[in-house]
């Protein structure tokens, strides 16, 4: 089998439709008779619902119905959303109701929904729904929420604590007792959003004739969404079909189960009308899940050479009001912190706490950016205190390639011991330093300083558990017209899933990419699936595509050998043809072979034949595949305004075997942009009543074209030994260490003033206020 497409810089199959505006996103799909939904949302962060008066709304011409919890089937209205990932450490698994029954725990919770002939009228109707609330005191800051006497997010639970548990190995206390040097940092990471450019959207239609409920949803996880809807509605799973059509970005929040999905589906059944809901941006800021709020108090113990003896500390995680994804973000954070370094003893105590804010769930990186930030800040601190170069401190502590597979000593979130499967951390750092001209940065910096310009450089390393299970399936089927149908539970929100899977199948089967027709994100096409999260699809679906494709190849060869009368070994499969290598190169098309593989009515098949040219594979990874990398950021800081410009950005990363460099480069570049947002711009703010105050793109700043440089990217490929294609995930590595590298670079740029930072986002006013309290800065300005 020749690898023609695998590894090649193949242009995306997704693009032609999207470039002419003929993509089909959920809101683009039109069904006759559709009613439009708009939600009535709580303006309070903590309240008890007293009553709802919907009469004025119903009186509005064009409003067809208003639903509150009481109007849903009783069983459904009482149920809470499913808990996706329970964990023994959780003291509660509290999730929310579909529509508010009595408790309101964050601003924006859905209280009622208005159905009308148009979106405009539905929103008019929302304004006319009168809701009576008993307002309670809210708690906004997770540090307050853990204090005794804090207002309770869920009064019936008696405590705001979700979980308190350690993540540890080795004798960390002994390590610290004997250490020559101990340094401590107090770190805070902001809360932000995924902010896919397409917000959430749902269209549901009940087809009485087929007794089928179809739901189009801008989701990363159609199969999980179907399961949730089935559970809440008490309906047969296979009489619900969830389709993720074109989806305008995911980044994590679209892998969450939301009450709106089920409510809209239920109303479509009840009213026997198609129902559409399209979230607006303000709602997205209020109600789509967010991430990153964490406070870290961490210490590192090192010897005189800067070699790590131990790391310990405490992690305080703000889970918001509910736990749709359990406690996986702090869990992942705690297991990601050791990174590429040899750490003989480690203990991180984590406390997970409710606040009256929208729940936190994974956003691109999922706990890892925080962990890497904490670890890399400690490494920079060691370098500074011991007067070593930051790259040297890291080099001295790397796990070496010959130590692979390397058991860290913890259990990862996949339930398996945290064992790095492969990787070459020193090589990645070496490559990144070279590409960033790290060695001659000091003279460049000195020269810039003479011109009054403050430039700085920062390094960050990471190891990321990707490709998580349990499985993803792919069916490969040769159709009678010679096309090759590929079906997968994997989904596409921009990752180019269609393209990468086509590359793999085309090579395996021996057809052209143009002959592949693909169905993804449709629960009717494949019984089981997971979808997009944890940089898992290339690994899981990619492996299944290879396995299924090779199996179909065998089937093709078997039928072709019989049809052509030559042994299988003498047949080439190319561009959808089986071609005999001998004689006059007789050939037969895949389409004809597909016919032949069906047998003949009344005749027996040959022993060992398969029915049709078709195979379904469900690759189940034995554990996570650990990718890794080094980022080097170069910034220039305006000491007058505090503005930071990222002027150069280098990524040397190892995502195993690269299937399509064009797409991987795009994932890295886009991930870095997200990381720049996290480091310098994006900050979801709430006031002391837990009232969101950054609910537009004018208040919540996303990176623009002028904020993101073209990254210099190098792929250091150490194939993952655990899966048949050698791949590791590539979707999140661009984001994970970015804030760490950028903040280090800012600090480095401002080294003449000895100002230090341990928080993100590092917005201009924080730089200016740090500078104005720095003696060196004041002295310099006094001289001017």
């Amino acid at each position: 089998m020749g690898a023609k497409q695998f590894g090649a810089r193949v242009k995306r199959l997704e693009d032609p439709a999207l470039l002419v505006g003929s993509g089909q996103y959920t809101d683009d799909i039109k069904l006759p008779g559709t009613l439009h939904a708009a939600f009535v949302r709580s303006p309070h962060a903590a309240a008890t619902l007293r009553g709802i008066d919907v009469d004025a709304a119903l009186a509005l011409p064009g409003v067809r119905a208003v639903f509150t919890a009481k109007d849903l089937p009783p069983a459904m209205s009482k149920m809470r959303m499913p808990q996706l990932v329970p964990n023994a450490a959780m003291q509660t698994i509290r999730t929310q109701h579909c529509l508010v029954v009595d408790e309101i725990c964050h601003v924006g919770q859905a209280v009622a929904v208005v159905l009308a002939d148009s979106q405009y009228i539905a929103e008019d109707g929302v304004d006319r729904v009168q809701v009576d609330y008993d307002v309670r005191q809210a708690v906004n800051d997770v540090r307050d929420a853990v204090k005794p006497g804090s207002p309770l997010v869920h009064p019936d639970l008696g405590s705001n604590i979700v979980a308190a548990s350690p993540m540890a190995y080795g004798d960390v206390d002994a390590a610290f007792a004997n250490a020559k040097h101990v340094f401590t940092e107090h770190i805070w990471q902001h809360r932000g959003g995924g902010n896919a450019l397409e917000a959430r959207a749902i269209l549901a239609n009940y087809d009485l004739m087929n007794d089928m409920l179809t739901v189009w949803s801008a989701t990363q996880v159609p199969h999980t969404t179907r399961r949730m809807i089935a559970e809440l509605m008490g309906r047969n799973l296979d009489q619900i079909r969830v389709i993720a059509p074109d989806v305008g970005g995911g980044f994590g929040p679209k892998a969450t189960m939301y009450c709106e999905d089920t409510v809209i589906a239920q109303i479509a059944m009840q009213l026997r009308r198609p129902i559409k809901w399209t979230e607006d941006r303000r709602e997205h800021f209020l109600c789509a899940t967010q991430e990153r709020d964490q406070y870290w108090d961490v210490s590192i113990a090192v010897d005189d050479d800067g070699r790590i003896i131990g790391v310990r500390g405490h992690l305080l995680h703000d889970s918001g009001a509910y736990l749709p994804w359990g406690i996986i973000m702090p869990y992942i954070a705690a297991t990601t912190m050791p990174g590429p370094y040899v750490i003989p003893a480690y203990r991180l105590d984590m406390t997970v706490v409710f606040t009256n804010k929208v729940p936190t769930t994974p956003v691109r990186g999922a706990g890892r950016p925080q962990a890497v930030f904490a670890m890399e800040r400690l490494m920079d601190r060691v370098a500074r205190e011991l007067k070593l170069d930051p790259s040297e401190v890291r080099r001295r502590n790397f796990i070496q390639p010959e130590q692979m597979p390397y058991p860290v000593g913890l259990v990862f979130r996949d339930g398996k011991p945290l064992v790095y499967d492969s990787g070459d951390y020193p090589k990645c750092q070496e490559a990144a330093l070279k590409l960033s001209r790290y060695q001659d940065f000091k003279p460049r910096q000195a020269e810039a300083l003479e011109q009054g310009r403050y430039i700085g450089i920062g390094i960050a390393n990471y190891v990321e558990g990707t490709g998580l299970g349990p499985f993803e399936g792919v069916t490969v089927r040769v159709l009678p017209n010679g096309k090759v149908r590929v079906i997968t539970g994997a989904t596409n929100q921009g990752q180019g899933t269609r393209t990468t899977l086509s590359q793999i199948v085309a090579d395996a089967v021996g057809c052209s990419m143009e002959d592949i027709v693909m169905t993804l994100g449709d629960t009717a096409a494949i019984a089981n699936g997971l979808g997009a999260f944890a940089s898992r699809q290339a690994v899981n679906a990619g492996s299944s595509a290879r396995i299924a494709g090779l199996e179909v190849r065998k089937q093709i060869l078997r039928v072709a050998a019989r049809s052509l009368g030559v042994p299988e070994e003498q047949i080439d499969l190319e561009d959808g043809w089986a071609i005999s290598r001998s004689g006059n190169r007789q050939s037969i098309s895949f389409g004809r072979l597909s016919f032949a593989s069906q047998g003949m009515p009344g005749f027996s098949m040959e022993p060992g034949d398969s029915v049709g040219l078709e195979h379904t594979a469900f690759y189940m990874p034995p554990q996570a595949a650990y990718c890794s990398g080094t980022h080097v950021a170069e910034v220039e800081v305006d000491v007058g305004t505090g503005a930071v410009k990222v002027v150069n950005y280098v990524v040397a990363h190892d995502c195993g075997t690269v299937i399509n460099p064009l797409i991987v480069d795009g994932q890295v570049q886009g991930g870095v942009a997200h990381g720049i947002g996290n480091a310098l711009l994006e900050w979801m703010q709430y006031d002391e009543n837990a009232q969101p105050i950054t609910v537009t793109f004018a208040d919540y700043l996303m990176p623009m074209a002028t904020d993101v440089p073209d990254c210099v990217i190098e792929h250091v490929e150490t194939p993952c030994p655990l899966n048949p294609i050698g791949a590791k995930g590539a979707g999140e590595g661009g984001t994970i260490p970015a804030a760490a590298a950028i903040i280090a670079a800012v600090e480095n740029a401002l080294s003449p003033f000895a100002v230090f930072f341990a928080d993100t986002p590092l917005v201009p006013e924080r730089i200016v206020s740090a500078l104005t309290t720095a003696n060196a800065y004041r002295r310099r300005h006094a001289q001017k």
Partner: protein
Amino acid sequence: MTVKQAIAVTVNGKQYQREVEPRLTLADFLRHEINLTGTHLGCEHGVCGACTILLNGLSTRSCLTFAVQAHGQEVTTIEGLAEPDGTLSPLQQAMAENHALQCGFCTPGMLITLTELLRDDPNPDDAKIRETLTGNLCRCTGYSGIVAAARQVAKGGRGIAGD
């Protein structure tokens, strides 16, 4: 309910006559009245740029424009950028070649903004391309492919369709 107004708007060279409420945005008119769903809504408050169209040749937020304001005017959307025979404009081709889109949601706005830029300044430098793009957010790509696509067309000096 408000009285509807009759409007006639030329979109991608074709005239459409509809009766619309004065509050209907141009974006919703395009998307839902005449079913040109290639124009996207990412924020509906004028920042993200996904809804950008050309109104009489000038890039305009269709989420902040009422349909009635487009009465008697000419609108170009993403659906109107390729040649009538379906051949992609050089910019559209360059976008595919440079991986300038992932989810494609920002793409209509990016194409319109750059179509206008390259029409008015066939040879913009990177700084100008980036400055022009500050009115368009992309969450997926980190912009480099988009800038590269514009650069490629600028260098090619091929001019582009859609103006």
